[in-house]
């Protein structure tokens, strides 16, 4: 395939171009309730062509190889149209030429596990919630996504990389006849099938929570001091801060760009945040991004001060900063855009028990229900939580969404735990879905957070 892609680009002269061909094979087993409603294992494929001409960048995605000439014409026309307009001139930061083929080492290759075994494992986990009388429904999916990517550019880079993502994730729904509660459960990763075995604990624990939530009180809206557990603090890091360390989100927004200047104090002195997709074994791992740039760890915040941001080749040049391999596409249907890889708050020294003592009165909020940001403000949901009184965890609460202002909240982080945990099932929907978007954190304490409630 690399040779075929090279022959496509050999027709081009005096311009930068890259082309990515991908075969994405998704194997899915879906349980809705106690029944299977889908099994599929199908390969799909497609091409992504990018052309940088007259300092204008254009991208065309196409499915069929015969459309290459048409795609090239479209890209050329678009680049010309851009050059004639008041466009933002585009240049790419220089990077090393890479020739590499990378196949990850897996702890049990899912392609070697039979579909029957996958069905049985999923059936086994799907049964667990039904041991509780209040469980009325489950939705669980086994998903295995294998992306085989072939990348070539006119500078001479030739890269093949395989990404394997497996997970079992879904929801447990409980009801007492009056209200319905839903809890998410999930396991998975990027290093093989083994991580899905012997994980009954996750499904037992989440079943208990779905059951307990039926007796929990809706939270009373107001402003609280809170402790976020690792998963929720990870989503907070991703939503509230992470997106604004993505250069493309701030580059054309002058006021945000002024606030996100390197060297600016953005958070409490105890706060350190890094994005590091390079550690093997965790969900967010990759070796090269979809511009062929090696992934690098980026210290984003050090002692509360902004130290770096995530870049594509284009934004690295525009910001006069170094490229760091964070330009990633969901698949062959999309041009790459700047994404977080594995973002997390670095652990400090506090034990969980100490954090609860420091909190005294407030809320302990757990596990994410998704989040969103608008620049200065963010909102995200917690699956469940507890009222903390006099340093003791008391009754359970539900229907919790929290909201806050980015700079105020980063400054209001009062204490950080020592118990870093990265998520196994991530995801980020910035225009495209990135199933390997990984986040994490130790427990953290934040003062003065708005909690929505009826």
């Amino acid at each position, binding site marked *: 395939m690399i040779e075929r892609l090279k022959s496509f680009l050999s027709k081009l002269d005096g311009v930068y171009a890259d082309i990515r061909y991908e075969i994405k094979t998704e194997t899915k087993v879906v349980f809705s309730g106690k029944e*299977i409603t889908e099994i599929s294992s199908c390969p*799909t494929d497609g091409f992504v062509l990018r052309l940088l001409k007259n300092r204008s960048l254009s*991208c065309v995605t196409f499915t069929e190889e015969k459309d290459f000439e048409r795609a090239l014409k479209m890209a050329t026309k678009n680049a010309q*149209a851009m050059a004639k307009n008041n466009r933002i001139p585009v240049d790419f930061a220089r990077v090393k030429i890479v020739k590499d083929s990378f196949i990850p080492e897996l702890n049990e290759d899912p392609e070697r596990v039979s579909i029957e075994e996958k069905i049985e494992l999923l059936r086994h986990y799907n049964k667990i919630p039904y041991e509780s009388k209040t469980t009325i429904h489950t939705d669980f999916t086994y998903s295995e996504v294998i992306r085989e990517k072939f990348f070539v550019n006119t500078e001479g880079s030739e890269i093949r990389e395989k990404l394997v993502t497996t997970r079992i994730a879904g929801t447990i729904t409980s009801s007492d006849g009056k209200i*319905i509660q839903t809890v998410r459960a999930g396991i998975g990763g990027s290093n093989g099938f083994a991580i899905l075995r012997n994980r009954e604990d996750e499904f037992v624990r989440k079943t208990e929570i779905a059951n307990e939530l039926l007796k929990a009180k809706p939270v009373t809206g107001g402003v609280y001091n809170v402790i976020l557990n690792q998963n929720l603090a990870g989503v907070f890091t991703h939503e509230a801060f992470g997106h604004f360390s993505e250069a493309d*989100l701030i580059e054309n927004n002058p006021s945000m760009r002024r606030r996100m200047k390197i060297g600016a104090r953005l958070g409490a002195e105890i706060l350190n945040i890094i994005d590091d997709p390079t550690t093997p074994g965790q969900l967010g791992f990759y070796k090269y991004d979809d511009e062929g740039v090696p992934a690098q760890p980026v210290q984003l915040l050090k002692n509360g001060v902004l130290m770096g941001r995530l870049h594509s080749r284009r934004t690295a040049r525009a910001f006069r900063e170094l490229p760091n391999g964070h330009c990633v596409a969901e698949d062959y249907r999309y041009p790459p855009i700047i994404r977080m890889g594995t973002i997390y708050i670095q652990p400090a020294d506090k034990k969980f028990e100490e954090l609860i003592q420091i909190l005294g009165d407030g809320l302990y909020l757990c596990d994410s229900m998704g989040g969103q940001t608008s620049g200065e403000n963010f909102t995200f949901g917690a699956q469940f939580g507890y009222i903390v009184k006099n340093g003791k965890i008391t009754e359970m609460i539900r*229907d919790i969404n929290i*909201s806050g202002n980015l700079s105020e909240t980063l400054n209001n982080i009062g204490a950080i735990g020592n118990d870093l945990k990265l998520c196994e099932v991530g995801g980020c929907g910035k225009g495209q879905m990135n199933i390997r978007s990984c986040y994490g954190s130790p427990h953290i304490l934040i003062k003065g957070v708005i909690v*929505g409630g009826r």
Partner: protein
Amino acid sequence: MEKILSKMGKKVDSAELYHYRTAFQVVKYENGKLNELDSSIQSGYSLRILKNKTLGFAYTKNLINPDKLIDGALDSLKANIKTNFKFPSQNKIPRLNTYNPEIEQVNSLIVTNECRRINEFLRTKLDSKIDISAEFGTINVNIQNTRGLELNYRASLYILVCSAIFPNTASGLHYIFSNKSFSKVNLKMLNKFAEFYQMAKPIKKLKSGRMKVLFLPATLYVLLWRLGSGTNGSNIYYKKSPLVNKLNEKIFSEKLTIYDDPLNDEYPLARAFDDEGTSCRKLMIVENGILKNFYYDLFYADKMGVSSTGNGFKSATWGSEIAALKPTPSLENIFIKPGNKSLNELISSIDRGIIVGGVLGAHSGNIINGDFSVGIEPCIYVEKGEILCRVKNTMIAGNIYEVMKNVVDVENELHPVFMFGKALPAILFDDIMVISSK
């Protein structure tokens, strides 16, 4: 395609082949400069088969090896998904006006010029950052099955979203325009939009409490998402909806009439048949506050012993490869019947309340129970009928089955939206909890 179906016909009881092809261009014009011109040409195939009342499914993007697609579908029969439904055989469907051939003459230059014109106009009115994005192109769908069905769908779409962004944020107010081909945005409408933005510019703080809340059309998806979940035929079948036994009961204010109308071709992307080839029809969901219908595809209609309502669409909340999606019950064309007050009259009737300009976190929370708890961004404060200012750090929370009982009034005009709805009016609700930081 015929070859695959005739091959399949011998191996299974019946088969259905779905093929789509789309060609779209995107223009992004940010802060006065052209930032992106991208194109996509995508296509794919999905195959569904029925054998001994068992359903199989496979898909591919490139039909290089049809046998692999066939084998994939046959393999998937292992799942033993039982159903009694039959692929539809009727070919008689209404003709809709979904395609404007002028779309073929539209190019990125024409659209870029329009973005520039809008930007220049708004620049004279606003000092905000203005972002304009437009998308245009065509969709072709072909569905064939071995029961003699062959249907083609061709549609064209031009959609433009203009955003005025508030300083120090990435949030703003949005103006949405859509059509079946390129046409210029009416500057009078943009002028109204600019005036609205200007009124909402100063920032103040707000005291928490229960108050009137006006949802602008593009923000109603928060509530409609939850109603869509509550009336989805699959959730009714699995009994995970608060509406399971509530048909013909009053669930909302009598001022609310909410329906799905795929046949309304006044707006782009009308549908005469769904992604299974079932004829579409206007389906009343809530009429004068009374729950009238749930919506179904073939699979869940069979489970419930009813007929498909023509709502089997290949849709996914987060977008996905179309070929890889199986049809599921989906509301793609929601309309809300307009009321009799203008937007200005609605605002004038607010003694103390907020306007929801945009929301954060609509996807989080206990959706199936109807609960919502969202950040409001931008949040516009109204007192004694006048827009006073914008407030920061604000959330609203509630449950749609309580909140949608308290409708003050519905706007007398429909506006195109692109999430969980086709065209909606603004709606003013009373007594919603608004939380704001001190």
